[in-house]
């Protein structure tokens, strides 16, 4: 039970938690605004990774340097995945906005299955090697084995994105409009907020974050296929619920708690029980805090 081992597990859990957080934010923001669980969100993550693979392949072929490939392929993934997020909302959710709450949920599940099969047919059913676009570098000696450059890049990039997101939501006009829409859609509309634009923007923002997560994980793991969105989506959704769905800091906290739980359960008990502990924790929290760690009990609108 050395401290070094503990620290290593902690950092591993933290970097995995930050990936979950990037994806969980998409779930939580969409839920906050239109009270919909967007089950197709995991597929956005997968599409982001596929886009980055294609673009990185082309750029490497053209002979660009490593850093340029990293930046441009992430940008391409983000733009393409956001376009998907935007379109999904327009096609699958907007027409159902006044329907009973179950309908858009089913529509979301349908969209998820559709996108998986679409990529399966349009691309391939095989596992594809993913180039390690994350720049690799060495740490100085005594610490080099505790944290790798890949984990560090994931942690730093996620932290930067989170800070930017917090700034966007707290201090910008569009952030204010998002919060207003989340609080009361009708009232926001009456006060001149273009609700449709805000909803579209939320989907784009969520897809942006998921795509970054997709590229980072694919680069760390070195492979992708059409099914990778499923597990990542489930874990991120769990994080969002754990933290209190609808709450932005809650999603981040939930994701990190989930990542650390998995890491420590594997490290100190057994990886056989990794998911058992993760979901037992979810059940416990929901029993004692039904609205999640940072969620607020919502009052029923009348």
């Amino acid at each position, binding site marked *: 039970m050395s401290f070094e081992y503990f620290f290593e597990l902690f950092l*591993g859990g933290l970097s995995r938690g930050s990936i979950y957080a990037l994806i969980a934010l998409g779930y939580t923001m969409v839920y906050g605004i239109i009270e919909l669980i967007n089950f197709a969100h995991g597929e956005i993550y997968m599409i982001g990774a596929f886009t980055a693979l294609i673009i990185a392949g082309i750029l490497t072929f053209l002979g660009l340097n490593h850093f340029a490939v990293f930046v441009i392929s992430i940008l391409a993934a983000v733009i393409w995945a956001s376009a998907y997020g935007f379109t999904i909302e327009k096609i699958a959710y907007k027409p159902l906005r006044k329907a009973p709450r179950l309908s858009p949920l089913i529509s979301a599940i349908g969209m998820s299955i559709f996108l998986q099969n679409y990529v399966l047919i349009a691309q391939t059913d095989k596992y594809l090697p993913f180039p390690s676009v994350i720049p690799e570098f060495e740490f100085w000696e005594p610490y080099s084995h505790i944290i790798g450059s890949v984990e560090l890049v994931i942690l730093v990039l996620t932290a930067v994105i989170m800070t930017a997101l917090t700034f966007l939501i707290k201090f910008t006009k569009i952030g204010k409009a998002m919060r207003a829409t989340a609080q009361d859609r009708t009232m926001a509309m009456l006060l001149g907020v273009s609700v449709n634009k805000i909803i579209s923007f939320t989907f784009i923002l969520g897809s942006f974050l998921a795509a970054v997560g997709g590229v980072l994980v694919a680069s760390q793991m070195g492979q992708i296929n059409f099914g990778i969105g499923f597990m990542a989506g489930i874990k991120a959704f769990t994080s969002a619920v754990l933290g209190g769905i609808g709450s932005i800091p809650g999603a981040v906290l939930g994701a990190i708690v989930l990542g650390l739980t*998995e890491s420590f359960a594997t490290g100190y008990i057994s990886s056989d029980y*990794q998911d058992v502990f993760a979901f037992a924790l979810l059940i416990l929290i929901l029993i004692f805090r039904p609205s999640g760690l940072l969620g607020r009990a919502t009052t029923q609108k009348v």
Partner: protein
Amino acid sequence: MKINRKAVFAFACIFMASAPAFAAETIKIGIGGAHSGDLASYGLPTVKAAELVVEERNAAGGILGKQIELIKEDDACKPEIATNTATKLITSGVQAVIGHICSGATKAAIGIYKGSNLVCISPSATAPDFTLSGDYPNFFRTISHDFLQADLQADFVLNNLKAQKIAIIHDKGEYGKGIATIVKEKIEKAGFKDKIVVFEGVTSGAVDYAAIVQKIKHEKADTIVWGGYHADASKIIKQIRQKKMQVNFIGPDGLKDETFIQVAGADAEGVYASGPSTPKNSLAEKAREQHIKKYGEEPGAFYYQAYSATLALLNAIQKAGSTDFAALTKALKSESVDTPIGKISFDKNGDATGISLSMYKVEKGKFVEQVK
């Protein structure tokens, strides 16, 4: 339009009139296995192998004076579909079956064949129970079962790699956990229980495997034994190399797939995997050339095993003089036949004798057979 319809009708009449007459003259052999889906790359080489063998035999006059007809049915590697596949093959009047491919699907099908007294020869199903339990007198295979593979792995880990601390991890699946457990038992039986420092299952398809990799590093294991398929293995090996761990990585035939090397790239270097020995005799060379001539590429997984299974079946039918169940099983067990995988016969359980397993190592992007 009218003429067309008439022509079609006439054709249908001729076809229907001739079909039963034609059928009486042929020996029907069923081909069951995964011909579509993720694992089609494991099943389609069997179809090609059987076609090539049968084509050649038919050209030489067939068997017992009759032509051989192949009836192919897809089970997509799914047990629930395999039961339909088996029933369909039986109703279409097959006299023996080559297949199935995956252990799960095979398990579902062989019970149905048993009820109809049909012989079934698999080129790739390795679950030990099929032959060793004695429940399926109609089942034969041209591949070594998991006990033998686990023997080879345990022996290789202890004697060749001289492992001091062994981590055994698996994907919790029927195949992966099965073979990992047998390897563990073999090592324990050899008296090296203390050497196993980790024995755990991981979630297949997980987002990352950092925690289990850290644990293996913390336990200072020098050898990792993997039970499962190549998709998870390539992720795990990637994270191991990122941590700069100097460990041996060894897996079963579910790992020995070209996809593993393509996906893991440079990280795959030095990984060991067990699998059927590469055939080297003149029959194997001939089978390979036939395949290259017809399809313009190297044969896929289990091609030689399927080629040999078809040869063994035809030989047994010839020797038995009929496709009667008792005569056929007796001939399979008593007659030996030269095949690409060696001179084989079947023991009392239905396992092929005279075949061998080898250990492979990834060297410069290829699986290279390790000669003992």
